[in-house]
Each structure stands twice: as structure tokens, then as C-alpha cells.
């Protein structure tokens, strides 16, 4: 089933951020959420991951873990790559002591291999490039075999080649884990190369829902403005 969001409402200090938002993502599918900065995209991820409480509405998931890849990786800078990736397995109450050191080493090596970064277990985040940090955060996210993976602007701040690599890994992780994924992004290349469906938010509402191809066709004023990156159109930055 993946994840289903029904009539989600969230406001901060009387300002409505999300209003009556509904969407669904099936297992093994990727939904891309797009929109201007401040349109509530990251709030959706924080609500699904449980970092903040919703005001009303429903978030129905198929169970299992929810993983999140943060915009700037959010790796623990005092821990090396091994401890970062195995963090949940070592520190989570229900998993602590369940794995031997050898098993942890095997799992971490497996996950690092999946993101193309074998043999960097002893390195610290500060010794890695932005793209590598992002991939380590992918490995950390999938270590508990999550059923839902949330990506908050995964290609932000990366060069085009690193972005392409990250996009490839998003698709690869989807295929390997069969997880329902949500990718918040601004980048057209990420939408084209990863998304099965697209949801555009504006002022807390969904103003477009469809496939990446439909988005590119620019049939509505909203999609036209977004795809052409125009300042003329129904959406203005003041929101």
C-alpha cells in the first residue's frame, strides 16, 4: 500500500502551511513533490516522518520503518561512517545488542556497496565530499530496511554530475527496497529521472498532480510557470 495522506492540515502560528492535502504513493513508486520555497514541501516530509504533529487529517502507512534523507545529509559529525550507518542498529532501544560487531560490519559494508562507497567505514563526514555525504546518508537511511523513504531536496548544493549519480541511487534504492518514496525537489532533472508521479504545492494546496510527462506538457498555468521558471504566472514568491 505504501503511504496515503488524507486531508492533511498543518499551520504554524496561525499561518496555514498545508490545507486539505491528499495523495497516495504505492510501494515501489516515487512521488516527487515540487513547488516554491515555503510552499510546505518539507513540512509534508516532517509530518510523515513524525518530526512534527499534524493539526488534522490522516497519514496511513503500510507499517515498517520510515527513513528520511535530509537536505544537507545530517550525518553525525562526531561519528565515523561505520557508526553513522549502524547508528540505529546500535542505539535503537529495540535493536540494541541484537547484532554482533561482525554482523554490523557486514550490514554496513553491504549498504555502502549499494551506494557505491565501499571501504570508507573509518572516514569522518568532514573527510567526504557533499555527494559522498549524501550517499552515506542514503546508506544510513536504508539500514533498517524501511518501507517508506523520504528525500528532502537530495540534490541540493551538488554539481550536475553528482546530482545525476544521486538520482540514479534514488531509483536503485527504490528497486532494491521496493519502498514507497517521496522526493522533495526543485530540479527538473530529478523529476524527469526519478519520479513516477508529481505533486505540485502552492499555498498549502495541491495545484497539480500527474506524471512527469504531463508536467512537461505545461497544460495548466501553474505547470507552465514552474517548467519555464517564469516570474509571470499565478504563483508569486510572496505566496
Amino acid at each position, binding site marked *: 500500500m505504501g503511504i496515503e495522506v488524507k486531508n492533511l492540515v498543518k499551520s504554524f502560528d496561525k499561518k496555514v502551511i498545508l490545507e486539505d492535502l491528499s495523495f497516495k504513493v504505492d510501494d515501489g513508486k516515487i512521488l516527487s513533490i515540487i513547488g516554491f520555497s515555503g510552499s510546505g514541501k518539507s513540512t509534508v516530509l516532517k509530518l510523515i516522518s513524525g*518530526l512534527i504533529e499534524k493539526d488534522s487529517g490522516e497519514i496511513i502507512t503500510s507499517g515498517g520503518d*520510515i*527513513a*528520511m534523507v535530509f537536505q544537507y545529509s545530517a550525518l*553525525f559529525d562526531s561519528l565515523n561512517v561505520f557508526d553513522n550507518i549502524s*547508528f*540505529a542498529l546500535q542505539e535503537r*532501544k529495540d535493536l540494541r545488542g541484537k547484532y554482533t560487531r561482525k554482523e554490523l560490519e557486514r550490514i554496513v559494508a553491504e549498504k555502502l556497496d549499494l551506494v557505491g562507497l565501499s571501504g570508507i567505514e573509518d572516514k569522518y563526514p568532514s573527510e567526504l565530499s557533499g555527494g559522498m555525504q549524501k550517499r552515506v546518508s542514503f546508506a544510513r537511511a536504508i539500514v533498517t530496511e524501511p518501507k517508506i523513504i523520504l528525500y528532502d531536496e537530495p540534490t541540493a548544493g551538488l554539481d550536475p554530475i553528482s546530482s545525476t549519480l544521486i538520482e540514479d541511487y534514488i531509483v536503485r534504492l527504490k528497486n532494491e527496497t521496493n519502498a514507497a518514496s517521496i522526493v522533495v525537489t526543485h530540479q527538473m532533472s530529478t523529476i524527469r529521472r526519478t519520479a513516477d508521479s508529481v505533486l505540485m504545492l502552492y499555498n498549502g494546496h495541491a495545484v497539480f498532480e500527474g506524471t512527469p510527462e504531463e508536467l512537461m506538457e505545461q497544460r495548466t498555468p501553474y505547470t507552465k510557470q514552474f517548467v519555464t521558471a517564469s516570474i509571470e504566472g499565478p504563483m508569486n514568491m510572496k505566496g
Partner: protein
Amino acid sequence: MKIYYKATYTYKLYRMFIQELESFVTTLGNIALLGLEFLKGLRHFPTTFKSIMYQASRFGVSSLPITLSIVGMTSIIIAMQVAGEMVKQGAGNYVGMLVAILMVREEGVIMAGFAIISMIGSSLASEIATMKVTEQIDAIRVLKVNPVHYLFTPRIIAGTLMMPLVVIVASVFGILGGAVASNLVSGLTYKAYFDSVWFGLYMKDLNVCLLKSLTFGFVISLISCSCGMEAKDGAKGVGVATTKAVVWSFVSIVVLDLLFAAMFFY
């Protein structure tokens, strides 16, 4: 005629006062909530010996040079100021007692507290604040680990347990510093100084000193962690949180010191 009272200075001052009051109550509430969460989690002892030892070495070993310098110099200054005069007045035999009482009852704990706040408290607060603004604490939560148990429990336990050790070492160092200063300034013999050290010290002084240092250690680490957690809005937020942690810790230990003095020595 319509009065635009919101433009008046009185109203602006009133708004500022209300905002400060709100901020004060919020910070106090956050510290209390974190304290409760920490105490609640202690039932399961949700941390490891290794984490506590790491934080303990940070609290104890790292802070010791600066603490000893501050406490040592304070005792030397006190001895320099009073030893000569007391010897002249025929009270040279009580210099050791005076320095010892000051060190054990007040200076040792409060100066060690100030040193630890400046060195360790500020570092704890900025570390937690940086983790907060870089979403590392959110990442801990998403990985289903309780940040209070993982981050704060070892720091608060280490802070509480290490503070008495630092205070004992600092107080002994202070008394020794006083002896050297008295000898150099007024020619007071070491024997005369150390003979009087025990005149004015009672078990109660040592017990209160230990209790006070335990409390200070707990309060400093709790406030530093809590203020760090309040950080928001990037680098500026880290600075604000660190300053807040230092100010709150300073004021708290002075207020607690007053309460201890009133409870045990009044």
C-alpha cells in the same frame, strides 16, 4: 481622536517586557521538561559506560587546567590581600583557616562552576545547538532513537559526577596556593598555615561542598543541553543558544549558592 498607542515607547517597552517574560518562562519550562525526561529515562539507564566516560573526560580532564588556574589565582589573591594584615594584627595563625573556609564553602565550588560554564557548558550548548540547526537531532529522531537518552543522559551524568571531583582538586589546589602566597607575602610558615586549616572546617562544610558541586554539575549540564536544544535559524541561533546557556548557568549557580548559604549556614 484615535490614539495610536502601539507607536508609543511605553507600549514598546511593555511588549519587550512581555516577550522577555515569555522567553524566560519558555526556557524555564524547557529546562524542567528536559530534567524530567532525563530522570524518567534513568530507570532504563539508556546510555553506555563508554559514552559517560567520554563526556567525563571532557568535563574533568579538559576543564581542570583552567579551573585550577582560576581557583589557584583566586586563593593567592585572597592570601596576598589578607595574610600580611592578619600577621600584623597577630592573627597569622588563622590565615589557613580563612582560606580553607573560603575555598571549601564558596570559592572552590563557585569558581570551578564559572570555569566549567565557560569551557564545558558553552561547548556543550554550541555542540547541541549545531546538531539542532544541521538537522542531526531530527535525524536521531527519525532513526527512532530518543535524543534525550542518547545525547543528554551521558552529558548530564558525567557533569553531575565530575563536578565534585573537579571541585575537590580545585579546592586543595587553592588551599596550597594560599599557603605559598602567605609564605611569600608575609613570611607565614607552612606549619602555622596548615595547622589552622582544620580549625574552621567541619564535616558539614565538606558535605555541603560535595552536595553543592553535585547540584551545580547537574544544573550546568542540564541548562547547557536544554538551551542548545532551543537553537534555531542557523549560525546566529547557535550563538544565541550558547550565550543563553552561559547566562542562565551563571545566574542559576549564583542563585543556588545563595540558597545553599541560606539553608546550611544562616
